[in-house]
């Protein structure tokens, strides 16, 4: 049984034998080469660390929200850095799939001086927090500001243009389930190594669907610029996936819906990874009345996903965090993407792109389309 022995004898890092060899520095092999040139992400990492150090050292911010290296290939761990000396932990790579805006309200609260629920707000400005933000995350910060979850004055946005984040699931399925032990990231390729294979794959081919169709890769808010601004990206039809599904019959769409969501285990990772979901009590947790049952009944699961998506209408920036964190690989982003399409077509709005104006569902126009209204539909019929 040599295979078992190999996995064991390779040992781990300083922590002891619990961690296997895959946690070696992702770029370990690459760095040993003589023609070593830092990659784009390595340069960005250095810049992030330097800027974070400055912000923390000169007291501009009390905390920096970023990513640290993960324990597995293609993972990162969201961290809150509070000391300039810890900024070396921060990294930037193509696997930063979580939306850091999700952490912002809580971290902002954590850096405030402690006070009781009825104590008045302390005089003077409260400490600030710096957060890394790509296009979609910065749009979420706009939404959070519009919804009064975040005080814009207290946020230092470290804007990074997104090059598209890689879907771990796509890489894994590219290697049809064979275990991946290390992934090295080059500028346009990924070097993937397993126990018995090593392969180079094109980075863009495994970038997440939402990033591939994204037309706003550059942050809309930038207080500290990291790297270069992204060049404008054109996409003839960012809603292609939705359109394809819309072209099907009602029965086919229902079949898609039931099968797509049938594997949901109701772990709520999609909800909790979403920066829009901050309700103290979610509708699924309401007991009086109880809107949605809590077990794996297909109806309850379906209702949960429909209502969750619907609550994101006009607010979703298609950051893809929900889909990336789903342990069962459900494409629940399709629902929010459909709503994004409708909001854009009906009201001409995109979440987080109009900081000054209200969110689409908190306002109205007297001229809003109402084709779906029965009275009107009937009147039209009579006209004909």
């Amino acid at each position: 049984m040599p295979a078992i022995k190999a996995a064991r004898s390779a040992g781990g890092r300083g922590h002891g034998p619990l961690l296997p060899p895959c946690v070696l520095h992702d770029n370990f092999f690459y760095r040993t080469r003589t023609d070593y040139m830092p990659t784009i992400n390595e340069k960005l990492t250095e810049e992030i660390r330097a800027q974070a150090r400055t912000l923390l050292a000169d007291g501009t911010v009390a905390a920096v929200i970023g990513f640290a290296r993960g324990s597995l290939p293609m993972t990162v761990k969201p961290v809150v850095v509070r000391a300039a000396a810890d900024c070396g932990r921060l990294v930037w790579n193509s696997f930063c799939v979580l939306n850091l805006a999700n952490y912002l309200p809580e971290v902002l609260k954590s850096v405030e001086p402690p006070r009781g629920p009825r104590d008045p707000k302390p005089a003077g400005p409260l400490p600030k927090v710096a957060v890394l933000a790509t296009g979609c995350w910065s749009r979420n910060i706009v939404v959070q500001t519009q919804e009064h979850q975040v005080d814009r004055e207290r946020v230092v946005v470290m804007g990074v243009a997104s090059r598209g984040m890689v879907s771990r699931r796509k890489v894994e399925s590219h290697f049809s389930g064979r275990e991946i032990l290390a992934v090295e990231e080059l500028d346009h390729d990924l070097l993937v190594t397993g126990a018995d294979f090593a392969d180079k794959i094109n980075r863009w081919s495994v970038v997440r669907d939402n990033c591939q169709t994204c037309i706003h890769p550059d942050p809309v808010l930038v207080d500290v610029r990291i790297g270069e601004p992204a060049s404008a990206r054109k996409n003839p039809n960012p809603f292609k996936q939705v359109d394809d599904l819309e072209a099907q019959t009602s029965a086919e769409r229902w079949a898609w819906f039931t099968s797509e969501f049938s594997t949901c285990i109701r772990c709520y990772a999609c909800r909790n990874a979403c920066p829009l979901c901050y309700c103290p009590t979610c509708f699924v947790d309401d007991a009086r009345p109880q809107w949605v049952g809590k077990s794996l009944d297909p109806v309850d699961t379906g209702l949960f996903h429909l209502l969750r998506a619907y609550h994101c209408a006009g607010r979703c920036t298609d950051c893809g965090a929900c889909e990336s964190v789903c342990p069962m690989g459900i494409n629940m982003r399709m629902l929010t993407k459909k709503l994004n399409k409708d909001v854009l077509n009906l009201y001409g709005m995109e979440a987080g792109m109009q900081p000054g104006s209200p969110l689409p569902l908190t306002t109205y126009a007297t001229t809003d389309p109402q084709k779906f209204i029965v009275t009107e539909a009937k009147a039209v019929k009579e006209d004909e």
Partner: protein
Amino acid sequence: MTTQTTQTSSTSQTSQTSQTAPWDPKIIAFLCNWCSYAGADLAGVSRFQYPPNIRIVRVPCSGRVSENMIMSALKSGADGILVSGCHPGDCHYISGNLFARRRFALLSSLLDFVGIEPGRISFSWVSAAEGEQFAEIVKTVTERVRSLGPATRLVKNIDTVQTA
């Protein structure tokens, strides 16, 4: 992993009765207190006939009707849902129905997207003076739901629930 094959006596009775009695659509109507409910009242007072399939829930404003209520009615087995409010511009609360219009537009589109038949959920504007129109709309909606048959999609049924 196993389908719950045995039910309580009462449950099997339920399914029997629902099988034997001819199906007639049940439609939940959320009517705004100020216009549509008064319109329904007027329809009654003026003796305009409309199908007895609707079960009216009086709400203060069509803006009060949340997606949770609509989905909850679907889940509980309503064959159709009608939400009716004041005409745009006539809202007792100035703009409740205008906010509602945006929300309903998105909701009906989303439900259509996942394969809920478009005729299941209807929205309309009926003023307090439109008794006849209310009767007409109820007729239209009832006929649409009747032609769709009993609702099955997103209807919870605990007899056939998987246990694993």
